[in-house]
């Protein structure tokens, strides 16, 4: 395929200011078929978003005001009953609290470990950086289901590697005090590599001269990190935190594989509760209402994180 400019502007004396910008705007290069391709791509993307995201969300919103079991064709208007039932349900609030705790702890360790390891890899004294990057990123690209099954075997109180290696006698996944922390540990191990890679990218963007200037002013390594590197990594930290919030409020697979929400409801997170109601009990109305509450909570937390990041950026710039 040969590409040619549809129209090239004749040579002219170099203009200045707004005139030049206007001319550049007019001289947009297009290739044969580009406009059609653009339209097709936009139609496909927009159509997919409408059909696969907007429509199901809209349907779920409407469904949340109904007793909805599509398998038997039930779609009976119940008003706010699903919402009032949920908001007065101990199971729901328990699941929300557990989800909040789970997310906060996993995000904290993901960020802390990710940042610490990224800083260690970035250090000038570290050798084999590529090797370490690969090793730490490997769990991130491993399927979560596979990781969860392996950890389930590792957690077995009699035959599992953890008890055997450390000489312990703990029932990791069935002790209500340990079950949720065990799921958290697996999730942190699986996901911190993602933060490592992002923080490494952020560290590469930290201006060297700022660090050198701090050194000249007598700042130690710890001070350089806290006073210069960490504040400059704030946008990356916010990005990691926001994507983590969105991801962990929906944590589901690890619960399904490791504990199925048990013992009792000790590890039932909100997404598992929604799954249980929708796909085990086929009460799609209740599940949709719970999903909408989760959507609102996720949106609020994301908004707060953005506000916090924006405020921090303004204060740094100001």
């Amino acid at each position, binding site marked *: *395929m040969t590409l040619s400019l549809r129209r090239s502007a004749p040579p002219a004396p170099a203009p200045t200011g707004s005139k030049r910008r206007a001319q550049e705007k007019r001289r947009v290069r297009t290739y044969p*078929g580009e406009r*059609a*391709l653009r339209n*097709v791509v936009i139609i496909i993307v927009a159509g997919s978003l409408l059909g696969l995201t907007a429509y199901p969300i809209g349907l779920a919103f409407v469904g949340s005001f109904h*007793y909805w*079991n*599509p*398998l*038997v*064709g039930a779609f009976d208007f119940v008003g706010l009953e699903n919402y009032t039932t949920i908001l007065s349900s101990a199971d729901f609030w328990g699941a929300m609290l557990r989800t909040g705790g789970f997310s906060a702890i996993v995000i904290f360790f993901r960020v802390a470990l990710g940042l610490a390891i990224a800083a260690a890899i970035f250090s000038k004294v570290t050798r084999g950086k590529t090797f370490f990057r690969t090793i730490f990123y490997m769990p991130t690209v491993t399927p979560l289901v596979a990781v969860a099954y392996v950890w389930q075997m590792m957690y*077995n*109180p*009699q*035959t599992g590697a953890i008890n055997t290696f450390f000489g312990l*006698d703990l*029932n990791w*996944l*069935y*002790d*209500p005090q340990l079950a949720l922390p065990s799921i958290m540990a697996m999730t942190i191990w699986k996901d911190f590599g993602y933060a490592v890679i992002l923080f490494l990218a952020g560290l590469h963007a930290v201006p060297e001269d700022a660090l050198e200037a701090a050194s000249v002013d007598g700042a130690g390594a710890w001070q350089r990190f806290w006073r210069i590197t960490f504040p400059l990594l704030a946008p990356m930290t916010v990005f990691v935190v926001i994507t983590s919030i969105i991801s962990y409020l929906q944590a589901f697979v690890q619960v*399904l594989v490791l504990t199925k929400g*048990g*013992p*009792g*409801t*000790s590890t039932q997170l909100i997404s598992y509760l929604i799954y*249980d109601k929708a*796909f*085990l*009990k*086929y*009460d799609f109305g209740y599940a949709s209402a719970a999903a909408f509450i989760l959507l609102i909570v996720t949106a609020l937390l994301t908004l707060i994180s953005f506000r916090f990041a924006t405020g921090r950026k303004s204060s740094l710039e100001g």
Partner: protein
Amino acid sequence: MKLARAIAVLGTAALLLTGCGAGSGGETVDQAPSGLPVQGETIKYDPNTLVNDGKPIELEWWLWDGQEKFQAFADSYKKLHPNVTIKTVNQPWESYWTKLPLQLQSGKGPTLFNIHNSYDATLDPYLEPYDIETSDLEADYTGAAAHVVDGKVKYLDYGLMTGLIWYNKAMWADAGLTDSDTPKTWEQFREVAKKLTKREGDTFNQAGFNFNGTYQSLGFLQYQRGYNLFAQDAVTPTLDNPGTVQTMQYFLDLYNVDKVGSKDFGPKAIESFGQGQSAMVYEWGHLNGTLKKNYPSLDYGTFQTPVPDAAEAPYAFDRYNGESTPGINKGASEAEKAVAQDFMKFFLTDKTDMKNLVLNYSLAPAYKPLDSDADIAANPVVKAMGSLDRYIWPGPMPATFETSITKAWQDVLYNGVVPETAISSAQKTIASDLAKTKFKSAEPAYAHYAPSPR
């Protein structure tokens, strides 16, 4: 134009890669087979016909277990009708009950699919009735009458199953136990379990009895004490009764008082039994297939569930349930449904593959021509079940029973909830879930039915 062509080519490739398009398989057959024997007793299957006019056709058959045994039916059928390919697709149990109903609801899904009767209400709207006279089905299949609705049958049982005690023969012998020590009562069982236990202080080397994770099987033993799961109206659940509490307390005492096992030793009883850590477990007959597949070297035996008092016949030993024949998707094409109907006639009269299927799961056969089969009668699991006369069928139990009972047992064992509270909570959940369904129990149809307490 180039762009349009590129899009068309990409689109076609995507369709081909995603496997869209009508399913077809096998070869074209011009002539119907002839001279092949007609099989069956009352239901007859005559293979000397041309299926789908001899044109190739492929059907999907979804299932969650026993793929090899079910595929055997499809393979035998293909020998008679080479133009028909029936492909079994195995799905894990959990995702099966998510994917299948949604596929059926959207008018898609496999032509044939295995059924568990606890999902009866969910699947019923999507099932095509069998094109077989109900009187013929009743004549050939035990319990078929219970599946007749409006003069039609959409599925029925091919075998019947219940709970049993499974024991490790090597451990049994090692403890100095013989056949004569087989316990008949729960008190005798307690003593046998003690003999089979090996521990140093609180550290177990071998559990005498392990019930971790098998609560959905144990959770119905209140029948032995004369308590039904439903009130006389067959609609109101009555799980919260003294029989359930006493049963739960007995098993808790086995762990806490007799120390024949622990909630922390072998968190999954079946795995622990298979790995040779636990000497006895309580599970349904399907465990036979699991053990053969996952632990082929394990030497195990079975005996009938003990009862409170050996001198008196229990109200019922336990509940039993049927393993169901495949359903036909009402939303399939007419051609697919016609082939599926023909296949089901073959399935229901294929004595050889049916025998293998029944033996795989250690079931009491529902197909009457297999009643006197020597191999089935000699199967230790079937033998241990004894007569089904004292087993009750409460109907196709909605899934809420198993999930709520499991939660109650877990709450008691691991979360320190007292049995009465846990059972009461389970009762409330079950009542709430059942209120949204039209479920009616089959308990009143039990030959020895009596409203509880007796």
